[in-house]
Every structure is written in structure tokens, then in C-alpha cells.
């Protein structure tokens, strides 16, 4: 589009992660002129979610990252004598140690069928409209990549007993062979594929009863659109800062959420459900009557622990783990409270931290359901986008695929005054928000980054089978040896709109001590087994089987003091990438702090005017619809989240 950007703004935001997006929304809401850019083709940076093919393109991008040759106009000429430039990085170095493993087998017949259907549909498109060259270009590549896959993927021949070896090969192949995958937005099956994905499973169910559980790699590719795979795996605490902000700002109207349905624990090689609500405790079959009373008594105390200082006085200096031992709790209960409720470990938290975490958990319980957590449908990656929408509604200008070459700094005032973008356009602004990954190596040479270890698995069944196959679970696997960290496992079912029917999407996260695979594989092996033909025949397999797995390390740039970045002008603010924590409080706090610096003493994301009120203001033409009752009705609709909360708490207690 031949549209050009205005040359002046109040705030320029570089990067569309959650903290940047919230800040952009808040500034725009407060009347600032906001330009929000991202050099990538998608929203969210490391907070993004991808369809399956989108994820493969993302992986490919990381492999090719080093080859990017810039043909952008030279900006050096534009820098005046009294100015200096801070060049921004052209490469993203936040992702490392990427490893992909495919265990699912390839069904050639299905492939052919699918490719044919696609071809037909696209022939139609192109004949009806002779213009789209990219359209016809896209299909053959998809086709080709599928067929190369089928040749290269040797899962069926690899001995199931030796995953290490075979997988190494496969992994290399999968990532290597995706070269032909086109832009993430373009290679998803078109409508006809969509229709098929709706129909095919049904047809299979009736005609091929005995094989019903087989999921092939081509099916995953074919239904790739069904996946929304988060790069960071987080949940929303139902009383966390993000939920409060979503409700306050009305941004919640852009997203939909689901409750996490259960909290799991992993003990002695078994996955079991943790009772957390009062009803759960009483209905639990794992706990004895005595344990139930003990647990209820302890949890009731934790709810209001501040009122009973005598109960913890003298224990402040020891760990929560040691403290729990002093309480009237069986080892069973100590484990549950420590790992599944306080979600901490033996060594990391003090008594006070543990009590606080337990209280927070209990406090969040029952606001929206039986567990303290919510998950956004279509993945965590929706959230930054929701705030971007709000920013745009208040006039913010959005440009993806738009990179910034440098920040221009005035030598005398040491303030940043403009950016120079990829087209050589100079855009001036008062304030500049830059996400950490955009800074060059020079700039961050003194910064010590931590790393997050991540794994993403596509599996064929839940880690804990129940009557319903639509469970959303969180499981904490404690660290086994000193120096390593507890692993957080979040299992998503297909109704979260993050994976295809019949599969589960499993996210593993921990603070890195080694590479992601080294950190997480032991836990993966405890909970899952690779998917092979052999075991399909033997229906008695208990553990879920992995169809596909991805490991990677992500930079954790949270909690880094701005003084670590060299020569940062005072009006350039740094936003961090995702942190390792479960909630999103860190992002909200950052955004609010930055907003207060940019717009001191202004309200942070106040509720926008109700769209229904605005319509009624400018409009006397609809007597039948604009009767006075319409306004309260409208209000009750828009604010129903918050009004519901009160009722809920009561009903849950």
C-alpha cells in the first residue's frame, strides 16, 4: 500500500509484546499520538502464538536469521553534526537451541487427497481472478514441502526403543526441509481444506473404526490452522493485575477465556489431581478424613494468615518447606501445598513467601471457577493484540513488517528526538519505547540475561484421563537435583482453540540451567512416550504419546535495570520480553510504570466510552431502538464481567 506514515508522534513503540502493547494502549487512550511498529510480520514478538505452519515458518526464520542482508537506504547520511545515532539490531538473538522432533507417521494417501482438493480450489480462485500470482505460487510449494517431508520422515522405520538417535536425524530433517514454506499467513489450507477438516474425521470414525486413534503428521499439517501455539506459556491469575486491567479498560471484550479445569501433581511416578476448592477437598478420594480436616484447617488459616502472626512467628527465617513440616500436615499434604498450591519449591521460598503465594492462590480461587486460572482462547498471543486494537481504536497507527534502523539522539540534550525507519524516513517523537531484543549487541554488552527453557509437545491424550477429554491442566514437576528448577507443565485441550481435535498441546517451561532439551527432556520422558506404530496396536498404553516436539531457549530480559544498557537517552524506555513466571503481573507492572513516566498523573487505561452510548448521542433517527432502556441494558452488557464477579465469589464460598 502506497500509504506513508506521518512524520511526527508523541510516542513511538517498537515491538508488539505484551508490555509494549499495554503501554501503547494506555498512551493512546490518554490522547497521545502513538506509532506502534514491529519488524516482524506478526503481533506479539516472543509473546506470539502460531498456527502449525506459522510455527514452522518461525523456526525457519530463526535458522535463516543470519542471512538477512539489508538493502535499506543508508541512514548515516541523515545524521546531522549535532546528532548521534543508536543503531538498532537487525537480528533477533533471543531464541537459541531450537530442536524439533517428529514422531507422528506420514500417511501418503491422505496427502494426495488433500493436495488435490487444495489444487482444485485454488484453480477456481485463480481463474476467477487472474491477478493473484502469489496464489498459484503458494500451492506447489506447500505440495512440495509435504512430499519432501514424506520422504524424509523415517519415523515408521526407526526403532521405537531408540528415540535419541533417530530423533536427532528427524529433527534436523524437519527443520531443514521446511525451506519451501511460505509466509506464515499464506500457507494454511484454504476453505476446501477447512471443510474437509470438518468432515474427514467424522467419515473416518464411521468407516475405519479400528484405526480411530491414529494421527499422522500430514493431518497435523492439514489442520495446522487449528493450532495456536504459544511461544510463552502463561495463565491469567483470576485476581491478577492483567485480569483487573482487562476488565477496567474493557479490553476483555476482545477476547474470550476458559477456566483451567484442574491442578495436577506428579508424585511417585503418578499424575494425580490436586483438590483445591473446598468441595474438591471433601470429594477427594486420595485424602483420608483426617487429611481433609488438616488441609481445610491449614488453608483456612492461610486465607487470613496475617491475622494470626503467632502461627508463623519464629518461622520467618526458614523455608516454607521447613515451615510446612512444623504444621499438622501429612507428607502428602505438605507436598500438595508446597508444589501445587504455593507452586514453589523446597529451597526457593521463605515461610512468608509461601504463605503469601498460598493466600494468593486461594484468593483467586472461585472468582471464575474451580481453579485460580484462566486461559485466553486461541492462545496467549491474543492478549497483546487486544491491547493493540484498543490503541488503534484511539488513533494509534500500526505497522507490522516495519523495522527501525536507528534512534537519533541530540548530542547536547542527550535526548532521543527521532527514529529513521527502513525506508529512510525520519519520524520525530517525544518518547520512545523499545523492546529489549531490538537493541544491538553493543548496547546490551553489560546485560546479563537469564534464559527460559521451553518445550512444546503435541500429544494424543491427556496426562490424566477422566470422563471429559476437554480438560485444561497445570502440573508442577519439582526439581530433582540442586541447581535445576521446577518444571511447569500446562496441558491444553482442543476446546481452548489451540490444537486440533483429538490432540493436546503441552507446554513445558522452566528457568534454564542448560539447553531447553537438557532441562526438560527428563520430565518429558517421565510423563510421555514417543508415538510409534508399534504401540498403537497395543491399546493398553497409559502414558500420552508425543506426536511432535519442539525445544528452544528464550531470552528472559525481565527485571533488568535500565542502567545496564549503555548510553540510554532518558526518553528511551526499555520493555522486556516475557519472563518465566506463570502470571502476567510483570508485564502489567512494567507497562504501568512506563505509562506513568510518559503521562504522569494520568489514569492508566480508564474504561472507554461505551460504543452504544456514542451511537445514541449522534442519532435521533431510531425511535424504536433508542428508548431509554437501551442505555442501562448496554451498560449491563459491557460491564457484566465485573458485576458477575460479586455473585461468583458468593456462589463459590
Amino acid at each position, binding site marked *: *500500500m502506497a*500509504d506513508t506514515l506521518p512524520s511526527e508522534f508523541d510516542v513511538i513503540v517498537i515491538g508488539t509484546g505484551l508490555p509494549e502493547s499495554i503501554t501503547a494502549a494506555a498512551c493512546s487512550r490518554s490522547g497521545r499520538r502513538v506509532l506502534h511498529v514491529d519488524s516482524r510480520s506478526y503481533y506479539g514478538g516472543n509473546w506470539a502464538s502460531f*498456527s502449525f505452519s506459522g510455527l514452522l515458518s518461525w523456526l525457519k526464520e530463526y535458522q535463516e536469521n543470519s542471512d538477512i542482508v539489508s538493502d535499506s537506504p543508508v541512514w548515516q547520511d541523515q545524521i546531522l553534526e549535532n546528532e548521534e545515532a543508536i543503531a538498532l539490531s537487525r537480528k533477533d538473538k533471543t531464541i537459541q537451541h531450537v530442536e524439533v522432533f517428529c514422531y507422528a507417521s506420514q500417511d501418503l494417501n491422505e496427502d494426495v487427497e488433500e493436495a488435490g482438493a487444495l489444487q482444485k480450489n485454488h484453480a*477456481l480462485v485463480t*481463474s*476467477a*481472478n487472474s*491477478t*493473484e500470482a502469489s*496464489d498459484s505460487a503458494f500451492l506447489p510449494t506447500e505440495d512440495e514441502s509435504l512430499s519432501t517431508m514424506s520422504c524424509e520422515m523415517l519415523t515408521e522405520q526407526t526403532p521405537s526403543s531408540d528415540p535419541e538417535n533417530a530423533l536427532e536425524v528427524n529433527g534436523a530433517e524437519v527443520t531443514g526441509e521446511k525451506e519451501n514454506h511460505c509466509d506464515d*499467513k*499464506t500457507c*494454511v489450507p484454504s*476453505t476446501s481444506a477447512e*471443510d474437509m477438516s*470438518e468432515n474427514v474425521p467424522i467419515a473416518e470414525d464411521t468407516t475405519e473404526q479400528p484405526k480411530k486413534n491414529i494421527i499422522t503428521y500430514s493431518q497435523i499439517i492439514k489442520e495446522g*490452522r487449528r493450532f495456536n501455539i504459544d511461544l510463552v506459556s502463561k495463565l491469567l491469575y483470576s485476581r491478577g493485575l492483567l485480569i483487573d486491567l482487562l476488565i477496567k479498560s474493557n479490553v476483555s*471484550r*476482545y477476547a*474470550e*477465556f*476458559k*477456566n483451567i479445569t484442574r491442578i495436577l501433581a506428579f508424585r511417585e511416578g503418578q499424575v494425580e489431581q490436586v483438590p483445591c476448592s473446598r468441595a474438591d477437598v471433601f470429594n477427594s478420594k486420595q485424602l483420608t478424613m483426617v487429611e481433609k480436616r488438616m488441609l481445610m484447617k491449614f488453608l483456612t488459616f492461610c486465607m487470613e494468615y496475617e491475622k494470626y502472626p503467632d502461627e508463623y512467628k519464629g518461622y520467618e527465617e526458614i523455608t516454607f518447606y521447613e515451615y510446612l513440616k512444623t504444621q499438622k500436615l501429612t507428607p502428602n499434604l505438605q507436598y500438595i501445598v508446597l508444589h501445587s498450591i504455593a507452586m514453589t519449591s523446597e529451597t526457593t521460598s521463605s515461610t512468608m513467601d509461601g504463605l503469601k503465594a498460598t493466600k494468593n492462590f486461594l484468593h483467586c480461587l472461585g472468582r*471464575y*471457577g*474451580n481453579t485460580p486460572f*484462566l486461559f485466553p*482462547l*486461541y492462545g496467549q498471543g*491474543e492478549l497483546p493484540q*487486544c491491547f*493493540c*486494537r484498543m490503541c488503534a*481504536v*484511539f*488513533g494509534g497507527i*500500526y505497522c*507490522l513488517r*516495519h523495522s527501525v534502523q536507528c534512534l537519533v539522539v541530540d548530542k547536547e540534550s542527550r535526548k532521543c528526538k527521532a527514529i529513521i525507519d527502513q525506508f529512510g524516513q525520519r519520524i520525530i517523537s517525544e518518547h520512545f519505547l523499545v523492546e529489549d531484543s531490538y537493541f544491538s549487541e553493543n548496547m546490551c554488552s553489560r546485560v546479563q540475561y537469564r534464559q527460559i527453557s521451553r518445550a512444546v509437545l503435541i500429544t494424543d491424550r491427556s496426562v490424566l484421563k477422566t470422563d471429559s477429554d476437554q480438560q485444561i491442566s497445570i502440573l508442577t514437576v519439582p526439581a530433582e537435583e540442586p541447581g535445576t528448577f521446577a518444571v511447569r507443565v500446562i496441558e491444553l485441550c482442543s476446546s481452548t*482453540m489451540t490444537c486440533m481435535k483429538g490432540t493436546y498441546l503441552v507446554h513445558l517451561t522452566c528457568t534454564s540451567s542448560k539447553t531447553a532439551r537438557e532441562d526438560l527432556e527428563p520430565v518429558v520422558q517421565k510423563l510421555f512416550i514417543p508415538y510409534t506404530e508399534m504401540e498403537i496396536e497395543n491399546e493398553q498404553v497409559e502414558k500420552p504419546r508425543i506426536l511432535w516436539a519442539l525445544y528452544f531457549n528464550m531470552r528472559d530480559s525481565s527485571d533488568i535495570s535500565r542502567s545496564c544498557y549503555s548510553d540510554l537517552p532518558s526518553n528511551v524506555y526499555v520493555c522486556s520480553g516475557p519472563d518465566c513466571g506463570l502470571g502476567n503481573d510483570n508485564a502489567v507492572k512494567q507497562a504501568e510504570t512506563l505509562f506513568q513516566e510518559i503521562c504522569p498523573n494520568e489514569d492508566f487505561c480508564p474504561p*472507554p*466510552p461505551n*460504543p*452504544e452510548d*456514542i*451511537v445514541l448521542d*449522534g*442519532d435521533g*433517527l*431510531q425511535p424504536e431502538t433508542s428508548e431509554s*432502556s*437501551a442505555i*442501562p*441494558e448496554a451498560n449491563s*452488557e459491557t460491564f*457484566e*464481567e465485573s458485576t*458477575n464477579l460479586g455473585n*461468583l465469589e458468593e456462589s*463459590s464460598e
Partner: protein
Amino acid sequence: MSMEDYDFLFKIVLIGNAGVGKTCLVRRFTQGLFPPGQGATIGVDFMIKTVEINGEKVKLQIWDTAGQERFRSITQSYYRSANALILTYDITCEESFRCLPEWLREIEQYASNKVITVLVGNKIDLAERREVSQQRAEEFSEAQDMYYLETSAKESDNVEKLFLDLACRLISEARQNTLVNNVSSPLPGEGKSISYLTCCNFN
């Protein structure tokens, strides 16, 4: 929860290149205004109009792009849970027609598979500057299995018809899917809003 004053609520989302008249269509329909007041769209997330069809009150929630289409940066979340999409181009602008397949790809990827898509060629009041023939557009919409209509937001041609026809189709679709149109879950999309979810959990 209070009884809502409508039988159906549908979310309709407009897409298409910048400058094809999306906002004008919405304004014309919801407020009878043309051209829309400058700057008035700031802070307006969506527009509402309640219409009566065969004795039933249908509330249409009509969402505009908030300018994010200008640099091809529409958020995916914009498409989620839409019941209908109005894909708009400008009959006097070949380029806006040529971009349609690109828009369709976005729809395929992000919108619900149950979504109804209508193709709209706007600005028929500028017939003397027409660049895209009606026949071409009809052929294209047929191939894509879309309903097609030409409108003029300026002259108010076919604007009512566009939205009312769409409302009718949405109603019959909702009935066909035997979706009980739950008032607390006004969007019969694939997801649930926070509020609906909470009600369910405590039954």
C-alpha cells in the same frame, strides 16, 4: 442477569483495503450519516443497530478495522468470534479488488469456519469511474461462494439491504445450527466470554 431486549445478537466485522468506504457504510447504516464526521471514530470500537426482522429484535454489533488495515496490520483477534464478515472493495479502484484474495486468506486462517462472508462493491454513485465490472465481481464471488452486493454509502443505495439481508441469513443460520441463542452468550462463535463461562461453572 437482566433480560436483554433482543432475540439475537450478531457480531459483524468489516474488512477491505483502506479508503473503500467501510466506515461510511457503517455510519450510513447505523446513523444515516454521510460523510462520517472527522475524528468522530476515535474511541469507537463498534456501532450498534437493533433491527426488527419478522417480529424479532436483532441487535447488530458492527466492528470497523480501527485503521489497522492501512499498513496491513489487522490483528487476528479482530476476526475471532465474528458471525459475519463484510469484505468491501471500491468499484472505482482496481487495486482494492485485486487485494481480495489476500483478505480471503486472512479470513480462512483466522475467522471461524461458520462465518458468513459478503462481498460488497462500494461507491456505485461513481459509476463513471468504475474500474471493476459487476460481472467480474459476480464471477469472483460465485467462485468463492460469497453473497455479492453493490452499494453506495453516499446515496444510501443497498446499504439497508446489505445489513438486513445479512441479518436474515444470520438468523436462519443460527436456527439451522440449532444453536439456542443464549442471551448471556450472545456470540454463537466457538468460544465463550468470561461471563458466560462463569455462569456455567456454578450451575
